[in-house]
């Protein structure tokens, strides 16, 4: 559950007003033009940016002054989700222990997560020797071992080929169901939103709008901001 009430974010000339409620285990896509503040919304939830005012609750707990590591959140970025000097297995294991000291049960968890995302044969490889899609799978495996209820995705598949992108999206959908995750995904592809998301949040004009179902979103008429984002001519 993500609840943001009457919140305002400010950085220099940029400001973003947020009033938002996302139910547990929902898959929500965040759409909007470049620079509208989609990534900022995710950064605020993850604790990388602070609110000027307002309230942020995750799974019922108030998040003010809670550092990123203590929040029930895992975030996957478009790039740089893995440390290049550590192999795939260690990169996943970081999700359990930053010092990489794991007991047998925890090691089994890492192995299991790698099997689940289909990377068990690459455990010993360095990130430089696997593909971009596989690197994002490493990040997903780490999400599994961290066991946080909220998953934030910041255009994680933007650099992948269309076919691969669909596979990854389906994997995220499956993991969401298996682990009862609440997913919030920033994307530039309305198709991705239509394929995987239950609801859509639209960010425009310094404001995060309430979630609406994807069906409603794509059948909306005469909303200037959405029309110009989707390239519809009236």
């Amino acid at each position, binding site marked *: 559950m993500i609840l943001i009430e009457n919140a305002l974010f400010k950085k220099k000339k940029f400001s973003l007003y947020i009033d938002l409620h996302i139910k547990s285990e929902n898959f929500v896509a965040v759409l909007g033009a470049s620079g509208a503040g989609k990534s900022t919304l995710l*950064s605020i939830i*993850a604790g*990388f940016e602070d609110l000027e005012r307002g309230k942020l609750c995750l799974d019922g707990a108030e998040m003010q002054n809670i550092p990123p590591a203590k929040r029930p959140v895992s*975030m996957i*970025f478009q*790039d*740089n989700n893995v*440390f290049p000097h550590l192999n795939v297995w260690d990169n996943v294991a970081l999700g359990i222990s*930053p010092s990489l000291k794991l007991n047998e049960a925890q090691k089994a968890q890492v192995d299991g997560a790698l099997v689940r995302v289909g990377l068990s044969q690459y455990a010993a490889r360095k990130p430089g020797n696997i593909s971009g899609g596989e690197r994002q799978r490493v990040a997903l495996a780490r999400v599994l071992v*961290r066991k946080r209820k909220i998953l934030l995705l910041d255009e994680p598949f933007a650099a992948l080929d269309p076919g691969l992108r669909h596979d990854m999206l389906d994997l995220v959908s499956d993991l969401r169901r298996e682990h009862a995750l609440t997913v919030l995904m920033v994307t530039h592809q309305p198709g991705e939103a239509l394929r995987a998301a239950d609801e859509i949040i639209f960010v425009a004009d310094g404001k995060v709008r309430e979630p609406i179902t994807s069906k409603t979103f794509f059948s909306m008429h005469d909303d200037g901001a959405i029309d110009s984002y989707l390239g519809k001519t009236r």
Partner: protein
Amino acid sequence: MNGSKLLMAERTYQHFAAQMLVLSSVILGLVPLIWFAISRGGLSAFRLDAGVWDVLAFTLEQAFLSTVLSVVPGLFIARAMARQNFPGHTWLLRLFAVPTALPAIVVVLALTSIYGNKHLLGGWIELYGWGGILLAHVFFNLPLAVRLFYEASEQIAPENFRLSAQLSFTDKEVFWHVEWPVLRNIVPRVSALIFLLCAASFVIVLTLGGPTATTLEVAIYQSLRLDFDIGRALTLGFIQIVLCFVLVALSGRVMLQSVTHAGNQLFQRRFDGQGSVSRFIDLTMIVFGALVVLPPLFALVSSGFMQLQISPQVLSASGFSLGIGFVSACLDLILAWNTAQQTDWFSQGIALSALIVPPAVMATGWFILLQPFSDSLIMVIASIIALNALMALPFVVSILAPAFERRRKKHDRLCAQLALSGWQKLRNIDLPLMWRPLVQSFLLGFILSIGDLTAITLLGNQGVVTLPSLIQIQMGHYRGSDAAGTALLLAILSLVCAWAAQRFGDQYDPD
């Protein structure tokens, strides 16, 4: 498809001519010395006596100590600057860029006015000898190290710090997993660069070193010009060439960043180092860094401010400095334009030749060749200009080469398709796209030349007095207050040009 051939710039006859000009200047400097050595007994002219070893040992020891004292604190100050944001952060970064732009003689004067004064901190540090040399080298190179390491840490992707925060990394884990992988590549190169700058340092050692504190570069000058011992000079010169060659090769591309970086001024939020102990340590490091840089600058301003005067002497010295600086910077632009476009080892070696072959050796060769014209002021000035241009060339090329490379990657295929080449390409493509780095390189060549005391010392006579040599003369005649005024004037000139050069830097380039 293999596009590498297309991306290599064509080597035109102008490029070749410019490179040959540099090469022949260097060879012209070496030939008379080698000829002298051969005429006096060939290889036996080379002498590896105890004196030579002493000089080599001192050169290496002081360079090693200066490097350690600059790099280790520099690393921690840069880390502190990257982790903590505070009011004045940007200004402090700019302050760390100031020493690089200051002429050595100005800094020597500032240091003598603080530490040479018996009533102040005198006695605490023995200024003439080890102490002064280390102090001056650290003043120049600690801030340089801070800027280079800070820039490296700016290159770290913000996601890495966010991920570390999410995974609850401790400060130590952030260091090993995020910072060290980046620093591991740059620390050895920055160390090699600073070691090189300290090992080849001339003005500082000449003015602050005593009879026992002499480096190769200064010893070459002394044995050639004071003792006229060419065998010894050649031996020292040969050692210096080998040493510098190794260091230039080790420092690699860090050379390119040492003079251009200004910081993108955007502070990247960090989540590590926010505990009270870390904050205290970081603050201490930052204050220490400021204390290295600020007192000499403060002394420079406070002792020079009331003495700023435009006497006829200062006016004529300014005229010489500006004139020599202008012509030498123009010459640099022409040479750099033609050497910066190639990336093969030969062209790079040409561009770096003045870092490898000691200016003291080159200048002495020229000095001998120019003996018949020693009365001609024009020839003296011309040789000073030429040596200045050669000494600044590595740094000027280091600005132009990456600019050329970036633009070549962007536009060369299109140019090839449109059959743009030669004059057309120069006028329509290269000049409009390159004017910012060109102005920046010009200003850099200008700054290095107006602040130069090396070429003046090696080649000048009483007829040519520039601002730096005027400062030295005034210091020598115990006219400290006059010297302070002249030094402040020169410092202001240099800093204004450095500020302008920074404004022309690539980060302001929309292209």
